[in-house]
């Protein structure tokens, strides 16, 4: 396992862990190890199972299969107090409905140790040290909820540190802090990681921040660990684009050399005012995602012929996409076809979505043929023969003709946008 060699014993190990909630499995066979002293960041899209993984690691959630070991011991076999002296958790947001002071909150991290015997000097030392480390000592008399978000998170961190844990887990704990405060919390974390050799597991959806501070990244997607390695290995634009299902690019930061990921927003800003126009042939809901993505990519989108009340027609109306409509449940008539042909003649290209083709909408493919004849590019969703509901398999035949005449096949929106980019590089859109 990466990072295990030069470092100490195993701090946290997942072996084939499957876990989840009643009737819903979230984690599927997760396997990894974290060595003592490592700084690891767990990244992944929203809902990918990061928090569930954390809950399983802390024993809050029981694994239905596999084993979770903390410093070599099965987490479910630990006594609550032993567990708290090994694992400290900083939540997303600490919520104290009662008006405890900062000092009292931090003390709670220590409270249960001296439950029957009373707290000793050592406990107070530990609390004081934690408060000094996190720079909340001066505000110990203030009430917790009067603090700023950053101060509250530092208090939560102090509470976890007062437990004197050997591994600290943070669940998106810095997500809502501004840059100044998140940097401050991260600095504290890096310090305790280096000086006290406390293992850190940071759950984050800020990829750049994670790559900046962590020695290792673990990328989860839909409850599975898809990549586990150094920031360089994980921060790959194709991998991240696939996992996050959007166009992402990774560059190197010129100052630190860290990989930095960015979305396509900066490109959108550079787009010229005159945009390419795409006519989308779709129906039955096959166009909704196309409309959305093509609009986001900066295309002007038109559509038709669609039947009124079709879900694509509704979506087009909602997104203000010009659209030629036919009566509900009727075949495309001549008048509608003429209007659509006029629309296509105004477009720069045609995209055919994964739409089922029957006798009623077969003529829509003729629109694409006319575009090809006029020298305009056409992109056709693959697998039309499986969606061909015409009696004589005319649609499949037509699709073959289109491809022979130069139409390009596409599978998945990701590929389509790549093809569009190739046809019209960003600068020309």
């Amino acid at each position, binding site marked *: 396992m990466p990072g295990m060699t030069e470092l100490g014993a195993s701090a946290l190990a997942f072996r084939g862990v499957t876990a989840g*909630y009643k009737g819903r499995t979230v984690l599927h066979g997760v396997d990894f190890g974290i060595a003592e002293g490592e700084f690891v960041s767990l990244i992944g899209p929203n809902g990918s199972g990061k928090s569930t993984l954390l809950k399983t690691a802390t024993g809050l959630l029981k694994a239905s299969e596999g084993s979770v070991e903390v410093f070599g011991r099965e987490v479910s076999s630990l006594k609550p107090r032993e567990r708290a002296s090994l694992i400290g958790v900083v*939540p997303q947001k600490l919520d104290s409905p009662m008006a405890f002071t900062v000092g009292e909150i931090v003390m709670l991290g220590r409270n*249960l140790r001296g439950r029957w015997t009373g707290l000793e000097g050592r406990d107070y030392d530990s609390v004081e040290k934690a408060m000094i480390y996190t720079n909340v000592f001066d505000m110990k008399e203030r009430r917790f909820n009067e603090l700023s978000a950053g101060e509250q998170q530092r208090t939560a961190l102090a509470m976890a540190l007062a437990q004197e844990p050997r591994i600290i887990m943070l669940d998106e704990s810095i997500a809502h802090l501004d840059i100044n405060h998140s940097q401050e919390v991260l600095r504290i974390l890096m310090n305790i990681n280096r000086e006290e050799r406390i293992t850190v597991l940071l759950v984050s959806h800020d990829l750049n921040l994670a790559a900046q501070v962590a020695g290792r990244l673990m990328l989860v997607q839909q409850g599975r660990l898809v990549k586990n390695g150094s920031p360089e290995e994980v921060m790959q634009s194709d991998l991240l684009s696939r996992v996050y299902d959007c166009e992402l690019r990774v560059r190197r930061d010129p100052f630190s050399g860290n990989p930095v990921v960015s979305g396509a927003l900066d490109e959108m800003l550079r787009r010229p005012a005159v945009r390419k126009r795409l006519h989308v042939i779709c129906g039955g809901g096959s166009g909704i995602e196309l409309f959305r993505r093509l609009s986001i990519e900066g295309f002007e989108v038109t559509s038709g012929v669609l039947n009124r009340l079709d879900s694509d027609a509704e979506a087009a109306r909602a997104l203000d996409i010009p659209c030629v409509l036919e009566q509900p449940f009727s075949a495309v008539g001549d008048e509608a076809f003429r209007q659509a042909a006029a629309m296509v003649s105004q477009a720069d290209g045609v995209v055919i979505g994964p739409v089922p083709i029957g006798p009623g909408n077969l003529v829509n493919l003729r629109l694409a043929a006319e575009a090809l004849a006029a020298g305009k590019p056409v992109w056709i969703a693959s697998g039309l023969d499986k969606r061909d509901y015409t009696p004589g398999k005319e649609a499949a035949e037509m699709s073959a003709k289109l491809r022979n005449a130069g139409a390009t096949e596409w599978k998945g929106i990701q590929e389509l946008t790549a093809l569009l980019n190739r046809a019209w590089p960003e600068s020309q859109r």
Partner: protein
Amino acid sequence: MIVQGSPVNRRRALLLAAAIPALLGLSLLLGPSGVGLPDTSSISGRAIIDLRLGRFVMGMLIGAALSTSGTVFQAILRNPLAEPYVLGVSGGAGLGAALSILVGGGILGAAGLPVTAFFFAVVTLFAVYAIAGQGGGMPSVYSLILSGVIVSAICSSVIMFLVSTANVEGMHTVMWWMLGNLQPSSWGDQFVALLFIASASVALWLLAPALNVLTLGREMAHYQGLNAGTVTVSSLLLATLLAATAVSMGGMIGFVGLIVPHVMRAIFGPDHRWLVPASAFGGGAFLVLCDALARIVMAPIEIPVGVVTALAGGPFFLIVLRKRMKYAWND
């Protein structure tokens, strides 16, 4: 010592402790038969003293039980609305007590009434939890309070039904008991109640550090090394025992379990190591004071103490809370 306000709290605790002998004196001096210590040489005088002393003990016990119970419910549910009434626990205890009065719980002796009340209160608590937690998992505070209010309403309807079908004597006993009063029962009954209330309160006080951690939520409590489920269930049961004992002794006395914990929290802060004993003594003192007022305001007619707790206590506590709520709850 880092715990904030400890010297201040110690002073305030001393004041509270000093108030109790003063209240005992007041309690012995006041009564519908006249102000002043009655003549102890006569039989009736001794009986009056005995009665007034009994009222004092009843007030202290019931007030302490209701208020401690409310404190614990508020901590566990992390909600300022929580109290034995809202969760249906008092309603259930009341139903049990009414049944015990009407049908009779003879075999259990002095403990019959509180035990039946406790049994019904626990059943009610479980029913409330079961209704609230239908989706599986731990129910949310809001669904708990909602189902508590519903179950409470059902319990009081059943009590009304029982009352309406009872004979005149039974009807009178139950109605009088329901209005809430501190008419002392036998010393034996009081001793049993003292046993229940003292042991449950002390147990809850020992759980105070755990309650402190639980106010941060069950998840955080788990991370702090608390067996959150066990502590939640055991403190809920203890708080239910307190509420049930109080209801079986004094009937439906409202307000104490809700407002005294808030005031004590505003004065002593949210640390349960201070708050649990402070609520016990504060609740007792408050109820004794209200009872003293109830006896003399319209003497020789006594008004039910529950009326006084709300009418006299309400405005006073509202003033305290307006000034000091920020020391108790966040927003």
